[in-house]
C-alpha cells in the first residue's frame, strides 16, 4: 500500500470516528435527566460503528462512486467511506428536509443514488438488492461492482445463503463483506454460529472466501482489492469476513452487562493502533495527526450545523412519497 493511501485512509477513519463521537454526544445531549430513547433532536435507535472503521475505509478504497454499497443497521462508516455527503447524512439523522430521505428514512435507511448507496435495518436483507444492482451493472456492460455488508450475526439468516448461492450461480459482480465484531447485540458469535470462520461458508457456494484477522486495515485493503478486481473482471463473487471490533454498545443505551470482554476493548481500538503504525512508518507525526483531527472536527461540526438548521418536515407532508 502506498503511503499516500495509508494517510488518506487514516484521515477517513478519523473522520468517521469524529462523526460517530459527535453523533454520540448529540444523541445523548438532550435526553437527560431521564434518558428517553424518543426524546431530543436525534430520536430513535442509534447504532454507531466506532471500532469498525478499518473495514469500511479499506473496502471502499477499492471502489468508485459507480459501485454500489448496501449496508446494515450500522451504516455510517460505510456511508462516509463510500463518499456520502456528511451534511445530507447528518440531516437525515436529525430527520430534516435536507436529509438524504428528507427525514423519512432515518439513520438505518440511507439512500444515496449518486453513489449507489443503500442500507436496511433488517438483518441480511440488504444482500438481495445488492445482487440486483450487480445484475443491472452486468446487463449494462458496466464494470461496476456491488459490495454487500452484514454483521457476523447476519450470516445465519436465510437471505445470506440465498444471496451467495444466486450470486455465485449467476457469477454476479458482488463482494460480500461480513463484519465480525463478535456480538449480535448480546449473543456471542460462539453461541450462534456453527463454524469458526464464516469464510468457510464460501465453500458452500464454490467461491473464494477469506477471513481477515485483527481488524487489519492493510490486510482488508489487500483482500478487498482481490475481491473487487475479481468481480470487475467477471470472476464472480467473493466472501470476506473481517474480525473487527464493536468499541461501544450495540446501540446507544446498551449497558453491555452481558459482555465479559469489555475490559480489554479500549486497548483493541484500531485507530490509535493505526496511528502508531503510521508514526512508525514515518508517514504521520503530531502535526499530521492533529491536522487530521482538526479537519475532521471542522467538517463534522459543519455538517451538524447544517443538519440542525435544515427545516423540520411539515407534518402535513407525512403521506407524500408513498408513490411517485
Amino acid at each position: 500500500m502506498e503511503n499516500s493511501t495509508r494517510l488518506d485512509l487514516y484521515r477517513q477513519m478519523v473522520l468517521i470516528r469524529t462523526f460517530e463521537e459527535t453523533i454520540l454526544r448529540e444523541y445523548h445531549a438532550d435526553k437527560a435527566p431521564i434518558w428517553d430513547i424518543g426524546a431530543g433532536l436525534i430520536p430513535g435507535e442509534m447504532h454507531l460503528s466506532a471500532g469498525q472503521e478499518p473495514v469500511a475505509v479499506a473496502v471502499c478504497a477499492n471502489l468508485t462512486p459507480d459501485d454500489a454499497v448496501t449496508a446494515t443497521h450500522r451504516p455510517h462508516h460505510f456511508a462516509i467511506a463510500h463518499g456520502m455527503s456528511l451534511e445530507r447524512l447528518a440531516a437525515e439523522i436529525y430527520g430534516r428536509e435536507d436529509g438524504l430521505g428528507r427525514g423519512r428514512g432515518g439513520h438505518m435507511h440511507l439512500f444515496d443514488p449518486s453513489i449507489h448507496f443503500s442500507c436496511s435495518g433488517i438483518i441480511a436483507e440488504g444482500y438481495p438488492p445488492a445482487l440486483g444492482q450487480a445484475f443491472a451493472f452486468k446487463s449494462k456492460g458496466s464494470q461496476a461492482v456491488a459490495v454487500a455488508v452484514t454483521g457476523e450475526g447476519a450470516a445465519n439468516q436465510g437471505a445470506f445463503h440465498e444471496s451467495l448461492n444466486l450470486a455465485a450461480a449467476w457469477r454476479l459482480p458482488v463482494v460480500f463483506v461480513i463484519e465480525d465484531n463478535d456480538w449480535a447485540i448480546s449473543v456471542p458469535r460462539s453461541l450462534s454460529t456453527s463454524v469458526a470462520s464464516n469464510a468457510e461458508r464460501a465453500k458452500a457456494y464454490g467461491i473464494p472466501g477469506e477471513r481477515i484477522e485483527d481488524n487489519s486495515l492493510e490486510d482488508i485493503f489487500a483482500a478487498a482489492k482481490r475481491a473487487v478486481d475479481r468481480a470487475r473482471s467477471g470472476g464472480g463473487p467473493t466472501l470476506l469476513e473481517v474480525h473487527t471490533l464493536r468499541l461501544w454498545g450495540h446501540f446507544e443505551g446498551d449497558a453491555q452487562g452481558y459482555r465479559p470482554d469489555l475490559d480489554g476493548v479500549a486497548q483493541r481500538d484500531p485507530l490509535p493502533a493505526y496511528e502508531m503504525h503510521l508514526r512508525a512508518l514515518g508517514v504521520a507525526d503530531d502535526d499530521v495527526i492533529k491536522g487530521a483531527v482538526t479537519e475532521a472536527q471542522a467538517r463534522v461540526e459543519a455538517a451538524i450545523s447544517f443538519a440542525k438548521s435544515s427545516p423540520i418536515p411539515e407534518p402535513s407532508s407525512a403521506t407524500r412519497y408513498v408513490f411517485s
Partner: protein
Amino acid sequence: MVKIETSPQQVTSRKLTVSKAMVEGIAQEMERDPSVIVLGEDVGAYGGIFSSTTGLLERFGPGRILDTPISETAFIGLGTGAAVEGMRPIVELMFVDFFGVAMDQIYNHMAKIHYESGGNVLVPMVLMTAVGGGYSDGAQHSQCLWGTFAHLPGMKVVVPSSPADAKGLMISAIRDENPVVYMFHKGVMGLPWMTKSTHALGDVPEESYTVPIGKAAITRSGTDVTVVTLSLSVHHSLDVADELAKEGIECEVVDLRSLVPLDRATVLESVAKTGRLVVVDEDYQSFGLSGEIAAIIAEEDPRLLRCPMKRVCVPDTPIPYARSLEQATLPTPTRIAAAIRDVMA
C-alpha cells in the same frame, strides 16, 4: 396506443385467454423497452407453471428470461435492486401462498424504499403471482391473500379478471414507476388443464394499450344490488347476475380491478344507487377487503345501505383439500346467489 377505460374499443382485436393476453402485454413491453426482464421459477423453458410466460424464453432468450433457484428472498430482492438501478423487472412468485418466505423483501424493501428515500429512489418493478383455489390444491396452494398485500403500504395491487384488463393492466404495471403486485387467479387464465370460465376468453386489441391502475369497472349495471368483487369472482357474479335477472333482480357488478389504489368513488356511487351491498371475495373474510368496503360506506354515510350488507368470502379457515369442503369455503355461484336473494328479501 389505445387507452382503455372499461371495455376495449375494438381496434384490431381477437379473442385471447387471460394467460395469452398477459404474455402479449409482457412481450410488447419487452420489445419496446430493453430494460424489461422476467425472472422467477420455471419462467423459462416451462413457460410459467400457469402459462404466464409461455414463449418468452424462445423470443427473448435466457439473458432476459431467467429461471431462478428456489430462493424467493434472493431473487425478489434482486428484482428490487435491479429496479433501483433503472431496470424494469417482472418477478414471478409462483404461488402467492409462498409470500412468507420472502415477505421481508416485498414489504420492507420493494414497497418502502421509495418512501424511505424521500422519493429519491424509484422501484419500477412488477411482482406477479398466481392466486386462488378451486382445484383441491390444499391450504398452502389455494389462497388469494390480496388483503394482506393491500394492507401494507407502498405497493400498488392489481387483480385483473378479463383478458383485456390482463393485458392493459400488465402494461400499466410495467410502465408504472412504483412497485406493482399483479395477482392473477389460476381460474381466470383459461388454462387447458383447469376448469375454464367462459369469461376467460375475450376480445383483446392487438396494439399496445394501458388500463389505468386504480379504476374499477362496472361490468354490469343494475339498480337493485351492488356486487363488489374482483378476479374469478367477477365471472361467477356475472353468471349469477344473468340468472337473477330472469327473476327480475338487477345486479350491478363492480370489478375492482385494483385494490391499491382503491376506487372508492365507484363503489360509493353504486351503493348510493342500489342501497344494497354484497361483497364477493375469495380471500379470507376477516380483516380484509370486505371490511374495507364496509368502512368506505360507514365513513361516507352508513345509511346508504337500506339493509345489512352480505359478505361472500372464504371463512377464516385454512383452505381444505377435499372438494366437498373446499367448495363449501369458496364464493361459489350458489353462495353468491343466496346472498343476493337475502339482501333483496
